[in-house]
């Protein structure tokens, strides 16, 4: 392969490039964040922000971004195929993806497929560990992933174009336009990803077959400041993708899957006297087509259209006390093969209280109750406190109760759905320690949780599969997030690392849940010198059980995967970057799920323009 020859050449070159520049660290001014609650009511939990420079460095899928930069473990059915998270030892459906403040987990599956989210259309992505059902609703047990289109109101006109071309005919391209005045702000982007994805399995004479995919994403955000006290924002996203599902045996029937998702959100923010209100109206739709055999015309399909209305009212009781209420209403209408025509309505009310006792000490309390025509929901609560002992050290504490409601498939699947399912619910507590010294940051969080009524599809004695509220799970663990930035002369080093130790056991068997590794570690080091930047990142995942009895013969081996990249900015004032990166540098043979091998070493060249 031609790219491989260039690869060796580039390493030689790397040593000789001497003029470079620091990566542009995005310092936004006058930014309106898309999700106020994340800013206001999540001070007692751990939040990790991935900014646009990190987003740009990683592959464009949300799986890849989070896999290499966070403690979350991903169950990826091969590169680009269906992918779901395990955050803090929880299940795929216990992590919520929040788009500009709105929970976008599939109503059919209860989870987000992290390979159907393209990251480059977002300004920042926040990873919040721990419970968040009060604000983000069903599924926010392990944690929440926040996709943000933040709007800035400074005079700007920027075009951004990035193109990446890699082995296996993998193309990722994004064009974005940002235009803003002090009154108006506009941000839009179009992303296209595609790949033949026909890589050779490391150490085998077998190629990935039927793994090709493409997806297109259109993101747009518009903001208008009516006056000092009122502003309107509109966010929209359209995702259209098709994936063939790669084969695990050579003569298997080739299948493919199409996703079409739309998200629209209108918000009106208003402040008057001591009040601040935020009205949000969202309309989101999800739709899939599944082709059981790509040579046949027939397919099965399904979708859910959801309307969400949310009204937040914040009231500053005093300069130190803030009360907030959230009223929300959701209506989901589902239609499809298997679920027929079904709908449900959910109404909820939350109250949040934030009190700053002293400059050093605050606490937050919140509670939520919802009413639904389909299930009974528990009263949810969250309580937390933060104390700054010094500039060097602060302590956080949080305890909460969270839940996950049954999905449309769980409830309505013809012949299998179980209308009597209860929501899954959890109690959890965590203690966080933040250390900060100059450019060094360390967060160490220990947590524990109990989850009951876990919903699982099981074959029953009448020869059918049906979901049941079965398992109880006890989880405890610890996470460390490390950041360090050091500059001398014109050299800058930026180091980030995460580590998680996770024990997640089934109360009945006392065995570790399968597909939850005990250990996961990520690390990245970036180096900037003038206009040159380079990085190296590593992701280690410990051995993974694949059976409920933790049978040693079915363990997936631990894996250690590294990526490296280097780029040079040729422009004096703007960005004209040319770069190359090598994924899986050491050609590690690994699989995150059995027989779902991932690619060996592969190269990508890229060009980034920003004018």
């Amino acid at each position, binding site marked *: 392969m031609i790219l491989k020859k260039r690869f060796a050449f580039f390493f030689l070159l790397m040593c000789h490039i001497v003029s470079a520049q620091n990566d542009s660290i995005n310092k936004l001014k006058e930014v309106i964040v898309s999700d106020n609650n994340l800013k206001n009511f999540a001070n007692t939990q751990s939040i990790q922000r991935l900014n646009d420079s990190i987003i740009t460095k990683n592959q464009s899928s949300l799986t890849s971004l989070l896999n290499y930069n966070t403690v979350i473990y991903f*169950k990826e*059915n091969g590169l680009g195929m*269906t992918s*779901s998270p395990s955050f803090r030892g929880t*299940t*795929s*459906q216990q992590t919520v993806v929040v788009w500009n403040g709105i929970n976008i987990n599939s109503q059919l*599956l*209860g*989870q987000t497929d992290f390979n159907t989210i393209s990251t480059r259309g977002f300004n920042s992505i926040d990873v919040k560990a721990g419970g968040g059902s009060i604000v983000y609703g069903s599924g926010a047990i392990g944690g929440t992933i926040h996709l943000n289109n933040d709007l800035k109101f400074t005079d700007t006109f920027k075009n951004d174009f990035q193109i990446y071309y890699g082995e296996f005919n993998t193309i990722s391209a994004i064009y974005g336009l940002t235009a803003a005045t002090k009154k108006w702000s506009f941000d839009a982007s179009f992303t296209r990803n595609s790949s033949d994805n026909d890589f050779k399995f490391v150490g085998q004479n077998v190629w990935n077959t039927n793994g090709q995919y493409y997806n297109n994403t259109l993101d747009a955000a518009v903001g208008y400041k009516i006056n000092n006290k009122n502003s309107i924002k509109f966010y929209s996203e359209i995702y259209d993708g098709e994936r063939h599902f790669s084969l*695990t*045996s*050579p*003569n*298997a*029937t080739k299948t493919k899957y199409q996703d079409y998702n739309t998200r629209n959100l209108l918000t009106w923010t208003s402040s008057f006297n001591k009040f601040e209100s935020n009205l949000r109206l969202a309309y989101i739709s999800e739709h*899939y087509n*599944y082709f*059981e*055999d790509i040579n*046949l015309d027939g397919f*099965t399909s*399904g979708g859910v259209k959801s309307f969400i209305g949310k009204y937040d009212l914040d009231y500053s009781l005093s300069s130190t006390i803030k009360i907030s209420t959230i009223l929300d209403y959701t209506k989901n209408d589902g239609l499809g*093969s*298997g679920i027929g025509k079904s709908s449900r309505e959910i109404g909820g009310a939350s109250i949040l209280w934030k009190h700053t006792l002293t400059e050093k000490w605050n606490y937050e309390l919140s509670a939520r109750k919802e009413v639904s025509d389909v299930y009974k929901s528990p009263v949810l609560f969250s309580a937390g406190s933060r104390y700054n002992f010094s500039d060097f050290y602060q302590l956080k504490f949080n305890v909460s109760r969270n839940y996950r409601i049954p*999905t449309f*498939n769980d409830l309505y*699947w013809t*012949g*299998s759905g179980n209308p009597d399912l209860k929501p899954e619910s959890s109690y959890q507590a965590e203690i966080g320690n933040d250390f900060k010294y100059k450019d060094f940051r360390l967060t160490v969080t220990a947590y524990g949780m109990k989850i009951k009524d876990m919903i*699982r*599809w*099981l*074959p*029953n*004695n*009448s*020869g*059918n*599969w049906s979901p049941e509220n079965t398992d109880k799970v006890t989880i405890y663990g610890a996470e460390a997030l490390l950041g360090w930035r050091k500059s001398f002369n014109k050299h800058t080093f930026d180091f980030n690392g995460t580590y998680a130790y996770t024990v997640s056991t089934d109360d009945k068997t006392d065995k570790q849940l*399968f*597909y939850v590794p005990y250990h996961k570690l990520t690390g990245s080091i970036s180096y900037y010198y003038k206009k040159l930047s380079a990085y190296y990142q590593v992701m280690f995942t410990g051995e993974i059980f*694949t*059976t*409920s*009895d933790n*049978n*040693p*013969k*079915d*363990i*997936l081996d631990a894996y250690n995967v590294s990526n490296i990249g280097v780029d040079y900015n040729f422009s004096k004032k703007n960005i004209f970057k040319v770069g190359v990166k090598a994924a899986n540098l050491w050609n590690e043979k690994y*699989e995150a*799920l*059995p*027989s779902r091998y991932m690619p060996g070493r592969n190269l990508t060249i890229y060009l980034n323009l920003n004018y």
Partner: protein
Amino acid sequence: MKLKNLYLGIIASAFLFASCSNDDDNNDAPLGAYDNGVLILNEGNFGTPNASVSFVSNDLNTFQNDIFKLVNTPMVLGDVAQSMSFSNEKAFIVVNNSNEVEVVNRYTFKSLGTITEKLQNPRYSVVLNDKLYVTNSISKAVTVYDAKTFAYIASIPLNKTAERIVAANGKLYVTNAAYGSGTDVTVINPASNTVSKTITLANGINSIEEKNGSVYVLSGTSTKNTLSKINTSTDTATSFEAIATKSALNMDIDGDKIYYTQATEVYAINLTATAFSDKALFSVKDSSWSTFYGFGVIDGKIYSGDANAFTSDGTVTVYSSTGTALKTLTAGKGPNGFYSNNN
């Protein structure tokens, strides 16, 4: 393989529970002879090529897992081994999701070849007059192969569900039912490879067996059980039903008795019976879900395969006719069938 139909519904579960690796550290040497015993077919996890075959001797004292792999490494059996049929010394293993029929010598388990042509989610097979007939769920057809050369001969389109297949009185009987629904049995004339008749029976056909030239069909739904006996000379059926008992599954005929299961209970009635039994032979503890994922009766012994919800190796328990557990074995993933393998 009951998962397939639900694939989309539980794609989520697939993420969670998908499969198990096949890198078994089983360093046992092949036994050389796998006769005078029972072959246990373990279908494996959907989407993962970890189907396997286990062997247990008739006296239950010799047991070995993963015999196909032990004998034929580096070949893998594939993804969802659905069923097996026999002809002389050959065994035909239908591997549903791999679109393959693996042919082995049933006594040594050495691979003799792999059939792939025209297979589209193959389900069950039978050999008649040296021809192998395979039902296919995607093409809704029966495909025909030479049982000696494995060459493809013909396809017989049914245009409706093609599931279980038996041969009786020189004809083929195919059930047009799956996942607990379906009423028909299609009769195929093998001389012309055409459908000669469709017999409509009670809804919920799940098992079909040939015995002494007659064909027995069990239907079980959540409201009633029906047993039908097809006279293969006239291809007409006589039936009896019971509304007190329901959801009968897993019919297997051994000697002069028809065995079947209901939830966690095992029943037996005589071949000549005209009514279902209201008294179970015995019942087993509902240790988990899918207790009778696999069921078979061989020489009076009752074999049950518990799939353990497909999250770990399956458990095979062998019972006496009175329900005494004679042996408990840890087999492969999802044990779904038991086949007598006497020389």
